[in-house]
């Protein structure tokens, strides 16, 4: 069986729709991973030990096991305890939490790199600890760690393909559906790869733009 890419155009609409889902999942998970990462970093650095430790165990487990396994746990495991999430929601939460843990590591380093005088100065001026963290430390920390967080975002985009395994009809699953009708795996997976590549280029361009803007502001 040779290659015949002429079957692809008639499914382009489906693939395009799948690509939109991929972008949606990526953006949703990115938001969770970014704000979750900040939350986890603040807990890891400032919370009392009793709260810190369970979170540390949580982070260790998330960094030490594969994302695919975590997606299975969130999707099938929560059903076991009576929480029936739609696959899309389970996928976004799973991806988001996984990368929140990775982002938290980076943001912690960023927070530690903020001059200590900033914290002390802010406290001396009468701001509470919570205000100091929220308004003085975190904004400065986040700015310095945008490039590595951007790298995680690109990894997240590619890992969004994994949610096809729990049945979310994004780009990968859409191409699989087309394959099940046409029996042309090579053509459609290459087409899907092309879509991912283009989304990836767009994302990289966006990140470069953000990085440049931050540099000017500094």
């Amino acid at each position: 069986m040779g290659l015949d890419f002429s079957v692809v155009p008639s499914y382009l609409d489906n693939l395009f729709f799948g690509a939109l889902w991929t972008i949606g999942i990526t953006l949703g998970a990115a938001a969770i991973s970014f704000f979750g990462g900040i939350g986890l970093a603040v807990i890891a650095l400032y919370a009392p030990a009793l709260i810190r430790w369970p979170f540390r165990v949580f982070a260790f487990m998330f960094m030490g096991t594969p994302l695919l396994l975590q997606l299975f746990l969130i999707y099938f495991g929560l059903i076991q305890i009576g929480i029936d999430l739609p696959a899309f929601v389970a996928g976004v939460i799973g991806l988001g939490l996984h990368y929140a843990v990775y982002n938290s590591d980076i943001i912690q380093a960023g927070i530690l790199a903020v001059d200590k005088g900033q914290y002390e100065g802010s406290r001396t001026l009468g701001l509470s600890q919570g205000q100091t963290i929220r308004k003085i430390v975190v904004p400065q920390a986040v700015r310095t760690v945008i490039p590595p967080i951007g790298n995680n975002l690109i990894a997240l985009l590619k890992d969004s393909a994994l949610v096809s395994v729990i049945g979310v009809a994004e780009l990968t699953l859409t191409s699989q559906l087309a394959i099940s009708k046409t029996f042309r795996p090579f053509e459609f997976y290459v087409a899907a790869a092309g879509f991912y590549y283009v989304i990836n280029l767009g994302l990289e361009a966006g990140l470069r733009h953000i990085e440049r803007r931050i540099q000017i502001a500094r």
Partner: protein
Amino acid sequence: MDFDLILRIYPFFLEAALVTIQLAVYSTILGLLCGALGAYARLHRLAGVRFAGATYVSVIRGTPALIQLFILYFGGPQVGIQLDAFEAGVIGLGINIGAYMTETMRGAIIAVDKGQTEASRTLGMSRAQTMLKVTLPQAMRLMIRPLGVNINAQIKGTALVAAISVVELTYTAQRYIGSTYKPFEMFLLAGVIYMVIIYVTGQGISYLDKRAALK
């Protein structure tokens, strides 16, 4: 938490863990080869070779590993490449991690002080001698730790081949979730094994890194 069940089925998970370890070892070796070739290409004198290296890195890093595996395993037969799932897993994962290792190795090589190359060339060593005897030994030291990060990612990446039904750890966990309806127990069992593998590998890499550090 059903510990009886865990005690009853953990031998199957250990068997599956062996497959995961084999996948990780073979694909890491292939990845190191691809990485070395890629780094060589990316630093080559000829622009065409550099371009080929850059394209490899860009395409592989710009698309999901899962799709690459699917192209190789499901699409391969269409272009005359017949592989069983395990072989496709090793080759696909190896080529994938090779692109990341290319960048790691290239980064380490260009991080070696330029004066070293210049001095070595001035002393009359050829380009190849300079690379093999001066630059590379120093670059090797720098690349151990970042390659360790790549390998750590690769161990977790082996879970992807569950999607082309290689019976490794994640596939086994998934199968037992389906038959026992006990996802938390299965996750715990598989998760602990993954963490042990990653921990031991991490210790090994730290040891190598310490051994290689300048005294």
